């Protein structure tokens, strides 16, 4: 029996596989395809203090081995989540983690404080890296002082596991990660989407309603892997790796690069059952390679 449990501060994952925010709905959408209890955790849709309609359609453009999106954090707000969605999903036999976003520090703090009161949510993922919202979101995630301020403020009101999600749209991601660590983050997850753009040459217009959008999917994996490696060397807190993971082998690569756990995002769209398959595939890899505990793989890159 391969040991797959991952222990983070105040958060125990039965295996290293989680699903990425904004790609897995509230888990319910995938219940016909995946046994949610076979996952380490599900990170639900980006949640903000107030209701947000998101950006206009079109919000998506397909790219070679990936996609751009500018959904813009459409959600009904944290109170709606607590009243309507939380009761439906709180008893899932997996960790339900809420991705929290905001356009100013007060909003982040207010939303995080409300989620702190939910018994069955053991962690939040602070999204300081959404490239699709005008003010805030990514603005906090691209400077050390920004990420420090928002992390510190949320840390004061949030008492469980605080994961901070990093933006790849920076020059030196390790510095940003160190700032999050210093401000009290319990872990960092990376990467959010890479800022990109698509143009229709026939109409000479941008494809996306917001002109730019976030790139995700298989094509971002090499960039994500490099960043996970750089960050995991720099910080002492655990690193959660994501970006383009589409198979168990991809997941193993992230663990070797230094990630303690991983998230699967866009790959859920191509194979809605992929998250369960990756969890099983990691165990198979371990069996094949005589690895008794998945934790042995973390940072196991041979240089």
């Amino acid at each position, binding site marked *: 029996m391969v040991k797959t449990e991952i222990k983070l501060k105040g958060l125990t994952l039965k295996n290293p596989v989680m699903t990425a925010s*904004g*790609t*897995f*709905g509230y888990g319910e*959408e*995938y219940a*016909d*395809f995946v046994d949610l209890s076979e996952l380490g955790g599900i990170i639900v*849709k980006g949640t903000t203090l107030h209701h947000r*309609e*998101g950006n*206009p*359609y*079109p*919000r*998506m453009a*397909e*790219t*070679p*081995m*990936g*996609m751009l*999106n500018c*959904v813009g954090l*459409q959600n009904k707000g944290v109170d709606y989540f607590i009243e309507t969605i939380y009761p439906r999903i709180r008893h899932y036999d997996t960790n339900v983690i809420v991705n929290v976003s905001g356009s100013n520090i007060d909003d982040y703090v207010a939303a995080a404080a409300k989620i702190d009161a939910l018994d069955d949510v053991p962690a939040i993922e602070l999204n300081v890296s959404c490239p699709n919202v005008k003010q805030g979101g990514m603005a906090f995630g691209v400077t050390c002082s920004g990420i420090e301020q928002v992390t510190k403020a949320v840390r004061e009101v949030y008492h469980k596991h605080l994961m901070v999600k990093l933006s790849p749209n920076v020059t030196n991601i390790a510095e940003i990660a160190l700032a999050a660590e210093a401000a009290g983050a319990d872990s960092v997850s990376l990467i959010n989407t890479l800022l990109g753009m698509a143009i229709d040459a026939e109409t000479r217009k941008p494809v996306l309603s917001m002109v730019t959008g976030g790139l995700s*999917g*298989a094509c971002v994996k090499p960039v994500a892997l490099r960043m996970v490696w750089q960050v995991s060397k720099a910080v002492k807190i655990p690193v959660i790796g994501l970006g383009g993971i589409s198979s168990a082998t991809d997941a193993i690569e992230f663990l070797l690069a230094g990630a303690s756990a991983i998230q699967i995002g*866009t790959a*859920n*769209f*191509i*194979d*809605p*059952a992929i998250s369960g398959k990756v969890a099983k595939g990691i165990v198979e890899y371990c069996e094949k390679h005589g690895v008794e505990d998945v934790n042995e793989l973390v940072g196991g890159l041979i240089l």
Partner: protein
Amino acid sequence: MKSRYLRLYVYMKAIIDFIIVEKQSFQRAALLKLKSATQLPEIAGGQFANVRVDGCDKAYLRRPISIHDVDYHNNTIDLLIQEKHEGTKKLCALPVGAKLNVVLPLGNGFTMPEKDDNILLVGGGIGIAPLLYFAKTIRKDARPCVSTGVHFLLGGRTQDDLMLLDRFRNEGDVFITTNDGSMGEKGFVTEHSLWNTKKINKIYACGPMPMMKAVAKVAREKGIWCEVSLENQMACGIGACLCCVENTKEGNLCVCKEGPVFNIERLLW
């Protein structure tokens, strides 16, 4: 509200590896019959499938395609696919024997007509695809409206756009318009003479956006109940990513989950 949720549970979604067992090619389209080794889930008329395009580096995401026909006895579904760009070209070029990975059934489907309804199914271009299976489900349900018959009004640019007419004729009366007059009445579907002669109290439409908007306009003018099936771009197809939204009177709604079928009263157009 309640019944809509109930429906989501009834129609369990599945990922199925189908094999193409029959194929019929048209000028820029193909009809594929796909066979499943396992039992098909229950499918409603107007629901769609999300099809993975293997071996095409220009098609990373799945392609949403309406379910054109279903045979529960043989566990087959038919897809009628029009070549648009690389993804659909690849699908249309697949040979008999090829595998096709499909997620289905997705979306809500058309609302079943009531007793004594006089219904008109309007299809434009490849939008005719979901109407066939919907008509069959009405018949299978033995709805009394069958006594007045199912009427199809199908429109194309030329007669080449109008495929598989025999299949439709098996299910009801078929009326046709073409823009160039090469078949049926010349003009758009909204210009057909049946609008003046037939009693209609429910319209179901699927086709290009301008056509559906024109049909919706006629429906509004005449005060006729009308459902349209939208074709927004999709990524997940199951209500998880929020990419496919239509701005409605109720705000942004996912076409893949709340739709693709909407009553025009819910839409802003």
